[in-house]
């Protein structure tokens, strides 16, 4: 007995098998080496696609992506006004009032998530070097295009960027910000390579399309005021012949007619997976509105200033998205307070699960291509018939009266008309902020609305302080922060 007990003790004290017991066993989660093993088994293309999916997910799983990409810029331009709920305090007000602090959570999420997307795209560009077959070519192209999109979004919000060319890695934390020129070159080259590699026949929602890459590239050129490049790239999209204006303006945005031919690229949301759903629709719904199907409402809602709604020409169907009266749940009608209209552009998703719905985030659509080309041509050549025709394509679709070249005698006049057309056409699509920045009007407009905090430095957002503190090569934030 005595010997036996001692034996057990000695066995355990000195046995090496006890060492192995302390290795952690994981269940239901994968280790890096298991991921590598999957790569071998699934083949490079499959895994490349899987990592690319991870990149898309970083854009979409950002739980409030739409808020960072649609709400925040829309609130900054006064397109909408946030009302009610914690949302008003914590999300709407900082942007409406130009009072966001360092480390505003949505802004930080944009930064971190876009870099997560970039690092996953980097894995794909690392993995796929041979473009012998069409599938790997497509995936490589999509990785470039998606990375270009992520860089563009980051550039738009933060300015000069850190250009990362590696997969997530704890050792690579010492990279400095590139110059503006380098940043722009990276965006341009990624989107161009992507557009060239992706075959013409591709999707509109989810997987990056050729049209999407070119559309974002057009947007990039336009905002850089590279008018000729913008005009040519827009034409490139038009020449694809894959896109056209949707006859029914309102339906483009609604869940009920997902995937309009007008959409060049968008980020789809799904109800059936909690991480892929969005509260974009629910957040806009006015109080007490008659709900359809599983759609839920939230205490917060967004309102549209009446002067904007009243500025549409008579008969312009785009105005219909902003009723002041709406049917309520008890068979009657409710009305918003004076000065405000509801924003029902995205409307309800009857398939929603409460507030979580499946309304898609449209990143770039054909009407934008037409108006971008119109603007670029005006900047290059002054008022011209092609620009007017392009604008009229967009206007007639919505039953708005046509413009005539004779009404425009200067570049400035047509420039202002295009900016106004964009206000009507792209209201609450997240484009207004950069339109106004391009025209040098963002801050002056905000000041005119009484937003005293609006200052030039707020054209950019601050980098997360974690970047400044933990990256030895980045010592300063953007000026003003």
């Amino acid at each position, binding site marked *: 007995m005595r010997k036996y007990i001692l034996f057990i003790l000695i066995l355990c004290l000195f046995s090496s098998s006890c060492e192995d017991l302390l*290795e*952690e066993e994981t269940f239901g989660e994968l280790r890096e080496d298991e991921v590598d093993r999957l790569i071998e088994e699934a083949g490079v293309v499959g895994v490349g696609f899987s990592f690319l999916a991870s990149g898309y997910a970083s854009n979409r799983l950002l739980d409030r992506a739409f808020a960072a990409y649609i709400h925040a810029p829309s609130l900054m331009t006064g397109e909408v006004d946030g009302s009610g709920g914690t949302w008003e305090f914590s999300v709407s007000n900082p942007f409406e009032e130009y009072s966001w602090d360092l480390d505003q959570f949505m802004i930080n999420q944009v930064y971190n998530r876009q870099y997560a997307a970039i690092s996953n795209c980097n894995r794909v560009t690392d993995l796929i070097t041979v473009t012998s077959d069409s599938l790997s070519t497509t995936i490589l192209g999509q990785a470039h295009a998606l990375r270009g999109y992520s860089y563009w979004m980051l550039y738009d919000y933060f300015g000069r960027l850190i250009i990362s060319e590696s997969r997530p890695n*704890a050792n690579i934390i010492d990279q400095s910000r590139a110059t503006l020129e380098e940043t722009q070159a990276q965006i341009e080259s990624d989107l161009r390579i992507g557009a060239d590699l992706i075959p013409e026949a591709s999707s509109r929602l989810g997987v990056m399309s050729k049209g999407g890459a070119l559309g974002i590239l057009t947007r990039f050129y336009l905002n850089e005021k590279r008018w000729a490049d913008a005009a040519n790239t827009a034409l490139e999209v038009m020449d694809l012949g894959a896109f056209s204006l949707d006859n029914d303006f309102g339906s483009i945005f609604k869940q009920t007619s997902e995937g309009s031919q007008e959409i060049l690229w968008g980020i789809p949301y799904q109800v059936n997976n909690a991480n892929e759903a969005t509260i974009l629709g629910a957040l806009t719904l006015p109080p007490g509105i008659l709900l359809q199907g599983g759609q839920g409402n939230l205490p917060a809602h967004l309102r549209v200033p009446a002067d904007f709604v009243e500025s549409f020409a008579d008969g312009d169907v785009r105005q219909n998205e902003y009723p002041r009266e709406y049917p309520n749940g008890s068979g009657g009608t409710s009305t918003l307070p004076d000065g405000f209209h509801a924003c029902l552009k995205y409307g309800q998703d009857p398939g929603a699960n409460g507030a979580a719905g499946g309304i898609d985030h449209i990143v770039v659509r054909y009407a934008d291509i037409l108006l971008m080309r119109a603007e670029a041509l005006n900047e290059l050549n002054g008022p011209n018939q092609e620009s007017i025709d392009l604008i009229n394509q967009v206007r007639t679709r919505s039953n708005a009266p046509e413009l005539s070249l004779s009404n425009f005698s200067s570049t400035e006049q047509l420039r202002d008309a295009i900016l106004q057309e964009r206000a009507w056409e792209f209201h609450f699509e997240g484009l207004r902020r950069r339109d106004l920045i391009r025209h040098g009007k963002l801050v002056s407009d905000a000041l005119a609305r009484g937003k005293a905090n609006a200052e030039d430095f707020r054209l950019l957002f601050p980098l997360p302080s974690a970047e400044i503190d933990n990256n030895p090569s980045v010592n300063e934030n953007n000026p003003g922060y």
Partner: protein
Amino acid sequence: MKSQMFNHKKKPMQKYIKMFYILSLIFCSICNSYVAEGQITVTGKVTGEGEALLGATISVEGENKGVVADVNGSYRVESLTPESILVFSFVGFVSQTVKVGNQTVIDIDLEPDLETLGEVIVVGYGTIQRSDLTGAVSSIKSEDLNVGAIQSVQQSLQGRIAGVQISQTSAEPGGGLNIRVRGSGSINGGTQPLYVIDGVPINNANLLGSQSAGIPQDNNASNPLASISPDDIASIEVLKDASATAIYGARGANGVVMITTKRGFEGKGKISIDHYTGVQSVLEQPDILTTQEYIDFQNAVNPGYIAGKNTEEIGDTDWLDLVTRDAVVTNTNVSFSGGNESSKYFISGGYFLQEGIIENTSSERYSFRINLDNKINERVRTNLSLTTSLLVNNPATEGAGQDDRGPFSNAFQFDPTINPRNADGTINVDQNDPFLGDFLNPLAFIEGQDINANTNRTFGAFDVSYDIFRNLTAKAKIGIDRQFGRREILIDSIALLNVNNIIAQIFEQERTSTLLEITLNYNKSFKNFNLDLVGGTTFEEFNVRDVTAKGEGFVTLDQSLYAIGAGDDELSNLGSSRQTSRLFSNFFRAQSSIKDKILVTGSLRVDGSSRFGRNNKYGFFPSGAVGYKLHEESFIPKFFDQFKVRASYGVSGNQPNLNYLSLDLYRLRELTLDSAEVIFPEQIRLANPDLQWETTNQLNIGIDFAVFKTRLMGTIEYYHKNTQNLLFQGRLPGSSGTTNSWFNSGRLVNSGFELTLSTINVDKSDFVWTTDLQFTTLHNEVKELDGISGNRIRTGGGISGGNFILTEPGLPIGSYYVFETDGVYQSQEEIDNTPHADANDTVGSLKFKDNNENGRLDDGDRVVAGNPLPDFTFGIRNSFKYKGVSLDIFIDGQFGAELANANLARSIYPQQPTRNRFAFVVDDRWTPENTGATYPSLVGAPRNANVVLNDLAIEDASFVRIQSIRLGYRIPVKSNTIGSLNVYLLGQNLLYFTEYTGLNPEANVNGGNQLNVLDINPYPLARTFMAGFNITF
């Protein structure tokens, strides 16, 4: 009869009465068989303070003869001569000797031995005489634990032990408790102590605490120790200094709570029945606006709101009254114990029910225990401790970590002019009403949400000891702790704001821990030298598995929870997970005393944990201590019964409180791309093979003293805990592609004094007055946060106010960091000339200080406005005994703690102007007539969220509380069957003396999370009155 007993449709109260009746019948019939009988030479009864002393020994001096008193204290000794001398003795009492003479009946009442220096206390892997202790260990016996409606072990300790702060962060039945032993030694790594029950360390993580369908994560989820009946506890020891805790290595840094359950004894069986029943009611309803006050206020600040209502529909609803109730609490515990030289037993069964003072909440426990000790032969002994319990909780969503949720919170803020129900009796959830469309009717939570959580816990330890030599004992131990919980949630449409849905969720979780342990114990006395050695090896494994099923879109409530597949396929959700962790440890301790004056202790534990990174698999935790019994020296005055100084220093650790933190991990997820489901790997975190435990170096200096024949006894301790290698997450810049990786960095210090005093103020034959006092100071300070972004941690949520909590070097953990108010704007000119928070500010708005004088209100203007850790805490118990009557008064309190009173902040800046609020805020709001007001005009809505929680709402949360008053009476019994009978009346949580205007000065909606301590929507405090009795046979 039997089927009725377990008919679950019966109300718990009826069920309990029936069960108690049956149990009483059974046990009364058992007792009758224990009546003593027979002829005697000398007979009598041994009592102590009037109570029969079962097991008292009566020996005959000089002879090898003795008997043991039975359950009634009766004894019989034969074959005596008149010269025989009887010695009556019993543990805890002063022995008496009596010469027989010509007496044939000798009744003896023994005096209690108030000196506790000789008592044996439990330490890690052993026991020690209190007088030989070199470390800081507080011991409390069952009779000194808190009384009242006590569900869990921790509640029974609240306020009793110096250096141990216990706050009930949620007053919900079965709700969470936050315990800190000597401050807060970690920021992210967990601050709860290690619990060791009957020698087995337990995994005390919350079962069923995670987030679920439509229900926010419950941070105050059920307390795992609630499954252990406090009635079964014999003593609790709290190990505080490194000398005591280092033997628990990487789990000892937050202190160790050793729980020892009751065991059998030699003697005839004893039955003890404890019972109480009481009523709880809301301690104090918050002072909110009455209906008329509300109407007047709305008309003043929000004209048109009341006017817009249909006058016929204006109601007068006391919402707080509607959602609260007077609630029953009852407890019955029956134990049966006894044994003989070779076999001892303790068997108990109990039933506890606490209804909540919020409608539709309750907590119920059924528990059983069997403790068996057997001596097989001269060398071999076995011990078994086995308990199983069923805990049934019906929680509310109150205090569950989210704004705008919960019956009480909504009732607090609800428009009192709204009628709770429609004419047909259904709940009024008219979404076209501007208020109801935005805020859920409080009754909807009560009637539309059903949450039911059942937990079965079986906990057992079995050991075999074998004496290898006379001084060397080997012991092998096996322990199992298995918890199985199932939570069911059913949410009807009415409880979902403006959503038409029925949601059901079932969540099951199983936690199984096993322990295998071998120890060797060597104990030898030499001349002038005692040596006690213990060494061992232990292996523990912890497993958690869970599965969850959620369905939505059910057509009817009848086919939902128990037909979870009947929901909408698109919306249903399945999930499961499993985790394992292991510990492999070796430990050793030597204790010695030299000439019974000098005490020396040294210990070492080598802990290997699967949670440590690959490069740091083993941690070494040494400690050493010395003590010097000065009272053995001649130069110390004789009136010192004890004067001992002692000092210790050592290292203990705090292992990561979660699994897999050192590993690179990916999770496979699903994404829909172009209508196809794509599986992709999502990175969870980057690896850190160097990840290790948080390390605490602790110095302890203590003095134990006893004077005037132990009329005054006490302990004074000073401690200094220096904790480094704190666990943090992050540190990577976003540009690296992921921000998630864990690492060790930083340092913080806890230090303080502890004073424990026991006095016997009056000690007359029929009147005794004793006082026990504990007093604790705490200084918590973060010293370094190297590697943390900005060398500071900003947190805060649950209410607007930006990141209103700051942790940085020089401050305690979780300090409030808010904008500083500077009165109320009195003129437009004043607004124009100062930087103001808000473009919409008007006369009557709050004015804030531009502390960094940069001309605008920004983050740099925030000031530190306190922290929720108290500077000192105390507890004082006074006990009076007059003949059979006893009176116990226990008062405790805390000073120097601040708390964020979110309900006050929300009264100033409500989410909607129509929300109800504290009346005192409205009464002292700025108006042109009341320009000296504390609070702003409450007109208009603020546009700057950062100022919502400002320094007005950071309040002093100091309080003094009459925790309990107990009036007891020992009924003199002349029965042969009844040993003793005590009855008592008890009031609990009677009164708070505090300036704090919120609902609970100890509340934290985020449970143990110290980085976001917030009083928002807490479960209301209850006052309890109860009557109870204890009877032994």
